[in-house]
């Protein structure tokens, strides 16, 4: 009965909307303990709100199961779930006053009551009495500190007050789980900080499981017991706030949570990794020569006098941030962001070093773009919904295309390559993004980007495929770009044997 430890469990949940081709949530597996404060954290469009809506019951998973105390509730309608939601824009009922809003859920509720009828005990479902409702509403108003507002009209309340009413309306029903969908998004900074602490205190007091959705990493770090970092429909990492911050699972998490320096490095013998053209000591064990992502937090960069550290660099900017200075140091072509309480002059040459356990090494997600494609009749290769110019003669040694359009090898054999399936490889830095979108045959939208010291890594998506692109140029998330690949940079590999295509 291991399920009993967990109040809610999501098993292989996937979600696709009716007319869409892409899944907005993929392979979502998560177990949440009773009383936990869990935060779904990620940029907008990462699938966190959709996941929350599936738990609430407004959306049903396309695949997978949602278990509440071990019972599958995937297709249970929202009004039958012991789960309540605080909506992003409050969603209070404008035609009702504060009291009526909070009492709404209680008025809908029916509780079993055992009565003796004709000598028999019968269980009846009855509505709560007015007194009970009144008491509960009063108590909920007390919890959110809004005692005197009972008969006030919703429109006359400020945003913060409406927020409190929305919370009271949800907790008055004593749900097993409280879902909060970016509840503080519409409040100003000061109010937000205040509500963060109040919500945290409320969570402790009520003992209800909270599932909180936000795109604000600071909010997540402050409030949560567990953070679920999401991106592009996938869970990137699940962990305690400190774990997520100190041991990010990949470059995306590192970049999203706090500030970080991210570099592409190579593993060398004796626990060393080569970044910034120098060998740095590390504690993790990785296969030799493997390409890896390396994350260094700005506060972990130690600045020393010239030649005293591992590598020299020049300070190009210095910003006073209150308790520390933030420096940008150029090491060769790479930028290093560093934080230090010491003051170093701009334009001076300094040396930096990093303690081995502050070098976070992680496997690279993708080193090359790989696609499944096929050769078209005119010897182009089709992948990502487009026929690309390419050099099919690379498929056989010393071959050429003859007049009939067949591939002819040295020994005179001819091969008809049309419709033959191939694997297509394109290096990350060989995909070219172009501003002149209209002149390009393939367009995509930038879904994600991570800065890696001397270049950005972009995730560009078109209707059918993703492109991972390394580029020195700056684009923004959401930009539409044209995509070009020079024919010589498209590497092909036959899936079958060449012989089967002989004419």
């Amino acid at each position, binding site marked *: 009965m291991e399920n009993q430890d967990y109040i809610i469990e999501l098993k292989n949940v996937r979600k696709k909307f009716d007319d869409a081709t892409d899944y907005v949530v993929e392979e979502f597996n998560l177990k949440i303990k009773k009383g936990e404060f869990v935060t779904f954290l990620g940029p907008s469009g990462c699938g966190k709100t959709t996941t929350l809506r599936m738990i609430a019951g*407004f959306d049903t998973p396309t695949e997978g199961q949602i278990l509440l105390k071990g019972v599958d509730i995937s297709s249970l*309608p*929202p009004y039958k779930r012991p789960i309540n*939601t605080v909506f992003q824009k409050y*969603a209070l009922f*404008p035609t009702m006053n504060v009291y009526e809003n909070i009492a709404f859920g209680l008025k809908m509720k029916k509780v079993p009551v055992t009565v003796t009828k004709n000598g028999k005990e019968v269980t009846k479902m009855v509505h709560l009495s007015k007194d009970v409702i009144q008491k509960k509403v009063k108590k909920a108003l007390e919890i959110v500190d809004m005692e005197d507002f009972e008969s006030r009209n919703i429109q*006359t309340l400020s945003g913060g007050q409406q927020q409190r009413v929305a919370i009271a309306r949800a907790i008055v029903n004593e749900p097993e789980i409280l879902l909060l969908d970016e509840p503080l998004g519409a409040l100003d900074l000061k109010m937000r900080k205040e509500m963060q602490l109040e919500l945290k205190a409320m969570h402790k007091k009520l003992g209800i499981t909270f599932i909180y959705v936000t795109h604000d990493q600071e909010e997540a770090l402050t409030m949560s017991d567990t953070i679920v970092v999401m991106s592009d429909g996938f869970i990137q990492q699940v962990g305690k706030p400190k774990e997520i911050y100190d041991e990010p699972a990949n470059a995306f998490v590192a970049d999203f949570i706090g500030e970080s320096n991210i570099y592409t490095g190579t593993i060398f013998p004796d626990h060393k990794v080569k970044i910034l053209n120098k060998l740095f000591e590390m504690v993790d064990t990785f296969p030799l020569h493997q390409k890896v992502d390396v994350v260094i937090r700005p506060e972990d960069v130690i600045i020393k006098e010239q030649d005293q550290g591992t590598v020299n660099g020049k300070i190009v900017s210095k910003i006073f941030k209150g308790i520390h200075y933030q420096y940008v140091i150029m090491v060769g072509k790479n930028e290093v962001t560093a934080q230090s309480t010491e003051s170093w002059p701009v334009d001076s040459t300094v040396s930096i070093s990093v303690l081995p356990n502050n070098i976070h090494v992680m496997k690279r997600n993708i080193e090359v773009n790989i696609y499944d494609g096929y050769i078209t009749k005119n010897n182009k290769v089709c992948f990502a919904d487009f026929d690309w110019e390419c050099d099919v003669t690379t498929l056989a040694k010393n071959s050429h295309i003859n007049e009939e359009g067949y591939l002819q090898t040295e020994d005179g054999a001819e091969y008809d390559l049309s419709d033959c399936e191939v694997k297509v490889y394109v290096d990350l830095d060989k995909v070219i993004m172009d501003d002149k979108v209209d002149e390009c045959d393939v367009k995509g939208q930038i879904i994600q980007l991570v800065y890696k010291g001397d270049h950005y890594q972009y995730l560009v998506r078109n209707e059918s495929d993703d492109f991972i692109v390394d580029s020195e140029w700056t684009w923004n998330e959401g930009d539409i770009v044209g995509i070009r690949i020079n024919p010589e940079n498209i590497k092909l590999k036959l899936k079958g044997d060449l012989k089967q295509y002989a004419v």
Partner: protein
Amino acid sequence: MVKKVLAKSYVYIILFLMYLPVFLLIVFSFTDSDSVGIWNGFTFKLYGDLFQNKELMQAVLNTLLVAFVSAIISTIIGTLGAIGAYYSRKRARKFLEGITQLPIVNAEIVMALSLAVLFVALSIPFTFFILVVGHVVLTVAFVYLSVKPRLVQMDPNIYEAALDLGATPRNALYRVVIPEILPGIISGFMLSLTLSLDDFVITQYLKEPSFETISTYIQKILAKHPVPPEVRALTTFIFLIAVIVVIVNNLTAKKKQKSFKMQEGSK
């Protein structure tokens, strides 16, 4: 100064010209001459005659009956249609929106004729029910169009919030969605009521021969005789009712504004 006087008098002249015919009828409803323009001295005789004219009173009653029954049916169908369309998929909604606009721009005569042809072809006798059906067809699109903007303005999350708080879809509809769009429903009802009250074309084509509404009754006697003088009294009555409705409407709107301001003030 001259400009101001000119601008003002322009408005008043337009208003005067607009109301002159009605005003004439009202003035001459207090004399018993057969035609407008001859003053036989002040009398309430026409008002007495009005209530004596059984055919005319029956026509008034019929008009009200058709208008209320068809407005109620239209309001129910139009409101449910608007809610249904709002919550259906985009393609279905676009299609529905397209076809509901057609009756508004379509000539009434086309609608009347096609309905009449349809019922004749199906050999359905023209009854009160068929007349109501005709009026519903005429007015239902207006209800849809006055309810729809309220739905669009509504926070889409409040329906979900109601479900989340344990309301069944039906309860959520009755307790949250309908109260929210009620102003739209009421104005839809009023609109279809007025449209149906002064409808002539559809009524003329779809009514039973013996059944008369005010407009068809006047049309019928006009074909043979001059307008009976009692009609002047009737139009006065109708105009008076319209004026009262407008005044009451304005007063309640003002009251609402005031009470809202008071609430704001107490903050």
